[in-house]
């Protein structure tokens, strides 16, 4: 039987190399694969391009990864946070690049990357500074911007349940970017709240089919970002 289970987060991220493009799931702390991110910090891969809606909070998880200087470029919609100075300081010092993408365009570019659509048109950003250097096309009387697919070498994902073949379900709004990022990465690495035997997830309830998943690791008691921040904890 196909078995994508790996034993540790360390093992799960071990082949991420310098210069990798990495999608990291989550919207704020919800659905953020914090243990995988910390394993990536421990691994020390550098010059990374990270795709996430935000830039992390406090000094843990994504903010901590940015803080180590491992990240060359962020692609995100909202790099502000009331709880973190990590990104703003590096950005103002010119030490990190930023590609700002509207949240819906970010989601659709990722979905397009996974679905084999190299480019698409959207009305979002027409007439704004964010489309200044982009191709505009009038379709049936309305202007649209051409946007290109986003793909990644790796995706770091958090889910609720995973079976051994890699079928996934999520918990509430922790679903967010995770399913589309699973589709858009060459290697998708998943931390699951619970790993269950193959067959335990009803085929009607699978959110991410196993074809989009390469590795699953169980993190049964994940860190909660907001608690860590409230306690003033920083990683490592």
């Amino acid at each position, binding site marked *: 039987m196909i078995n994508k289970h790996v034993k540790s987060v360390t093992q799960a991220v071990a082949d991420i190399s310098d210069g990798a493009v990495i999608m990291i799931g989550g*919207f*704020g*702390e*919800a*659905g953020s694969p914090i243990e995988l991110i910390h394993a990536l910090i421990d691994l020390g891969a550098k010059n990374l391009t990270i795709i996430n*809606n935000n830039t992390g909070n406090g000094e843990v998880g994504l903010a901590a990864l940015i803080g180590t200087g491992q990240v060359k470029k962020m692609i995100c*919609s*909202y*790099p*502000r946070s009331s709880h973190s100075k990590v*990104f*703003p300081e590096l*950005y*103002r010092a010119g030490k990190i690049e*930023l590609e*700002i993408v*509207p*949240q*819906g*365009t*970010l*989601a*659709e570019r*990722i*979905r397009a990357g996974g679905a084999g659509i190299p480019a698409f048109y*959207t*009305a*979002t*950003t*027409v*007439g*704004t*500074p*964010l489309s200044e250097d982009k191709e505009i096309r009038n379709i049936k009387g309305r202007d649209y911007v051409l946007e290109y697919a986003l793909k990644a070498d790796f995706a770091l994902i958090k889910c609720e349940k995973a079976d051994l073949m890699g079928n996934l379900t*999520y*918990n*509430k*709004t*922790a*679903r*967010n*970017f*995770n*399913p*589309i990022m699973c589709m858009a990465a060459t290697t998708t690495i998943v931390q699951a709240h619970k790993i269950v035997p193959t067959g335990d997830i009803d085929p009607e309830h699978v*959110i991410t089919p196993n074809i989009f998943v390469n590795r699953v690791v169980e993190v049964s008691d994940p860190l*909660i*970002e*907001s608690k860590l921040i409230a306690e003033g904890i920083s990683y490592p």
Partner: protein
Amino acid sequence: MSDKVKDIKGWTREQMAELCAQDIPDGSYVNLGIGIPELVAKFVPKGREFIYHTENGLLGMGPSPKAGQEDPELINAGKKAVTALSGASYFHHGDSFAMIRGGHIDVCVLGAMQVSETGDLANWSTGEPDAIPAVGGAMDLVAGVKTIFVITQHITKDGAAKLVEKCSYPLTGQKVVTRIYTDLAIVEVTPEGFRLRALAPGVDFDEVAAKTDAPLLPMM
């Protein structure tokens, strides 16, 4: 309203939200921006039901949970803890913005830094060189939602007009706003420009016109 408020000039934030809520039809699918727009949910008129969408993947969003009942995996676009009502559904960001971009959301209520007389909205950046750009879902919402309402103070703390001929700040979207609820008035964006629709208590046309940096048409 009681006699007490007779001397009060202008509308409070709650009143602005309540007036806005009254203009949303029964059964509407609604997305509320962060800040004052969130108050709209408190003032759903009797006999009406709105279904709230939050772009991070929930339709059928309910009010904040009781203290101690918060779930870090059940949040809204402002990253605050919320609840899910009966009939709710969860979905991923691709599907969530398909709802927005595809024109399935009826009404979105947003804050504003500036609104132009043609309905242009600026609400994401001051354009200052050292500002860190952060747009979130605002551009997707204004481009995709059928009706965009704005709730905002009529002027800034520094006294500058927010209703203007042309936005000086970077735009969020062009020709998107249809109505503005301020502390002083309700103003409609029409093909002819701004048109007064209602005045707050103690406020007259001339005051609103004086605090608007574009021609203001009188009530119809």
